[in-house]
């Protein structure tokens, strides 16, 4: 049997907080650069938040011809299109911008109708200002066949919308917003039809304008709510300086992670948001362990100057901090290497989060305690009682 190896045990005690000024400058710079990056370059929002379509297709014969595809899909009249290789050279991810429901989409719907329901079909936009769409059939049809035909274009024909009198035109009334949602479906059909013969469709994602906006809103709320909830928890468990220090460290980590997304133009999707929230949780996790030790030492060494006390606590917990960071790091590393393209931006962000979360626990959260003027004799009475219990236990030992 083997002996344990002390992986992260150091004989020397480091003066971590002696470096708090350079650290402060670096942290501030990173955060400013991140914020400026978000404001100028911007996040590369995925379709979850922006709305749009993403289609994954695999070439039936070997490699995907990106340039050729770009021309084909670009000429469909579905707006901005971007293509990228996805995972391997035969697979391509086609992204189409969110559809706004313009007249081009109605023209696209006519092509869909002519292909699926018959050559003579015409589709025209209704009066300006409305989202109405008019379908004209080449011949008289009964109600069942009307409904059947219109459903091929992805719309529902209601009883009242059937053609009246001798006309062959049915008008489907909808709002401009509804038409935009429908146009997502039209665009999917157009792209799928255009590439379907040479490419196997592996997966389709579509997020309409409405859901995109909703997800964006709830995502922002999720981040705010998480940070507030965690700060409140830390505040209840510790002094207010700890809560503020932890909150600043968490903000630092969240902002710099978003900076990483800007820097590498990683896809900022729902999974990325999950990464950001998890990083917030992890960052605090790391901070709280050190804070816990700081509090313990504050009771034990009431006369020790704060800087020494903090340094001492950080050194005492250093091997744990590094050990846990290392285990999480290797676990997330496995996700980066083997998790596949879907999890790629999530795992890269998490990897960064582990590093920055460890850094910020020491140089942001603890350094923050110094700047926030925490004094070692500043414990609440309730904590003092716990302290006495601690002493009693020590006497027994």
């Amino acid at each position, binding site marked *: 049997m*083997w002996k*344990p*190896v*002390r*992986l992260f045990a150091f004989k020397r005690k480091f003066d971590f907080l002696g470096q708090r000024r350079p650290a402060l400058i670096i942290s501030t710079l990173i955060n400013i650069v991140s914020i400026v990056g978000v404001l100028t370059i911007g996040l590369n929002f995925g379709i979850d938040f922006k709305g749009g379509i993403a289609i994954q297709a695999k070439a039936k014969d070997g490699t995907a011809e990106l340039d050729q595809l770009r021309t084909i899909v670009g000429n469909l009249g579905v707006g901005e299109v971007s293509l990228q290789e996805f995972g391997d050279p035969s697979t391509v991810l086609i992204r189409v911008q969110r559809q706004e429901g313009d007249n081009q989409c109605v023209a696209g719907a006519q092509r869909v109708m002519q292909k699926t329901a018959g050559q003579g079909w015409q589709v025209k936009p209704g009066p300006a200002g409305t989202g109405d769409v008019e379908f004209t059939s080449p011949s008289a049809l009964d109600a*069942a*066949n009307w409904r059947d035909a*219109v*459903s091929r274009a*992805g719309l*529902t*024909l*209601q*009883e*009242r919308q059937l053609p009246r009198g001798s006309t062959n035109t049915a008008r489907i*009334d*909808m709002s401009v917003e509804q038409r935009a949602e429908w146009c*997502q*479906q039209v665009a*999917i059909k157009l792209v799928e039809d255009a590439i379907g013969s040479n490419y*196997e469709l*592996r*997966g*389709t*994602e*579509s997020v*309409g304008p*409405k*859901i995109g906006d909703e997800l964006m809103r709830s995502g922002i709320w*999720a981040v705010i*709510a998480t940070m507030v*909830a965690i700060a409140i928890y830390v505040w209840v468990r510790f002094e207010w300086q700890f809560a503020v220090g932890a909150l600043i460290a968490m903000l630092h980590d969240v902002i710099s992670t978003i900076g990483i997304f800007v820097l590498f133009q990683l896809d900022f999707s*729902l*999974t990325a*948001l*999950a990464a950001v*929230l*998890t990083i917030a*949780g992890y960052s605090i*996790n790391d901070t*709280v*362990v050190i804070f816990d030790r700081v509090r*313990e030492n504050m009771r034990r060494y009431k006369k020790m100057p704060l800087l020494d006390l903090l340094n001492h606590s950080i050194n005492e917990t250093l*091997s744990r901090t590094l*050990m*846990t960071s*290392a*285990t*999480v790091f290797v*676990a*997330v590393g496995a*996700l980066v290497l*083997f*998790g*596949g393209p*879907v*999890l790629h931006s999530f*795992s890269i962000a*998490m990897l960064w989060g582990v590093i920055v979360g460890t850094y910020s626990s020491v140089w942001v959260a603890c350094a923050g305690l110094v700047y926030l003027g925490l004094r070692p004799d500043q414990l609440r009475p309730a904590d003092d009682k716990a302290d006495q219990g601690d002493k009693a236990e020590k006497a027994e*030992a």
Partner: protein
Amino acid sequence: MLNLPRWQTIAIAAITLLSALFALPNLLPASVLQHLPQWYATSRINLGLDLRGGAHFLLEADLRSVLTERLTNLSDSVRAELRKQQVPFRDVTVEAGKNLVVTLRDEANRSKALEAIRAVDPALALSGSGDTIRVAYSAQELAKRKKEVIDQSIEILRRRVDETGTLEPTITRQGDERILLQVPGIKDTSDLKRKINQTAKLTFHLVNEDVAATGQNIPQTVPPTTFLVPTREGMLELRRTNPKAWEDIQSANPRLSPEQICRRYQPQCLPVLKRVVVGGEDLDDSKATFEQQAGGRPIISFTFNSAGGRAFCAATRANIGKRLAIQLDGEIISAPVVQSAICGGSGIITGSFTTQQTQEQSLLLRSGALPATLTIIQESTVGADLGADAIQAGTVAALVGTALVAIFMFVAYGPVFGGFANLAMLVNLLMVFAGMSILGASLTLPGIAGLVLTAGLAVDANVLIYERVREEKALGRSPFSALATGYEKAMSAIIDANLTTLIAGVLLFGFGSGPIRGFATTLTLGIITSMFSSTIFTRMLLAVWVRWRRPSELVI
């Protein structure tokens, strides 16, 4: 601290074994599962659509247009009632999606007009002043209607998607006006999408009793006023006995008319008059209730708007004793005999029904009344091999990730302590699996990422404990005392660290949707169960180990 009472040791071991038992069906190969009792073998974690392959649609019902439609119907009734009560009015207009505006000729008639409108429907909310009266559905009524429209849409969807027979769709309500449709294993979604866009069509016809009296199911000729329509039972029977024919009917393009279906496949059919007595758009509501008198049988009640009520009244008065066929989507769902003239705008269908049957029938009726248009507002379709790729990637990442963490722990804390921590990690994963099996949660690709992350995070509790034990050992404590104080003092940090991560996990679950929920589920479950596995479970292992080996020195 390490002196565990026997019952605690037994309880901890029992919890561990029980979770292993619950997790096991997920890990066993199919060949072994065959020989196990079904209830046990089938209690497995569902794979999410991103791993399994399938389609996921979020649909939004267009409630505004349904409301407008209802208001238009209401305006007819209000007009009729005002005329009947001889209240002179200038106009009754519909404000789309909101309310009716009644403009009176003379302000003095206001109270009389209000009374007349209340006579139409006492639950209406009336406002306005002078010669204008605003008529709206009450908030309560609107909420009820909304719920009904969604129920109706879900029913239509279920019927449509089920027609293909091979799919196992899950259709659930999402919030006030949305429906989530999930269809695992579907390859081509274009048919499915078309079905979403076909609403139900309900019409009432009189049965041509002269033709029916011949007793033939499919008469050679029928008069030009009459056509044949298959009954619902007939079609269900056909589907059971002749699935091939059923499929042909579904895939026919152009669609077969009911008469063609009758002639070609000969299910049970009824000759009905082509003339529509009243259509679904005039049907206001339908409910499953009970007869008034004691021991009341289950019945179906229905209400028409005023136009529908008038037409229905005339038709029933002239045809007492004849059958009235209710046709939904080219099938006759029921053909009750007209007992008496039904003139109040509402009537009932009696018969020897069970409660379940009346509920089904009334839902069928409702699904033909003013169906809402459903719009796809989010779609996610994953092909089977994309799902297989994801499973492959997720499995490899999970195995490599946990293996690396395990190696780390072995190296850092040696075979005994490292081994205990790794055993705890294994138990933690088993407990997450067990928890997901019990909760019926789905495992998604982000969920696997959550598992991997949990594996890395969960050993943190052991790292905290072991590092503390090392410190206490360095202070010169005996092995037993070092272990006991190590556990005790690490506890507050463990709880704080886990609870903060838990907060993030729970909020993520609350805000997230779809696959992200999967991540939040495994992460949250993993943190909760790690509190057991990393502290309570390892403490038990150590307690047993210390008593057994009585080490003079801790190798940690």
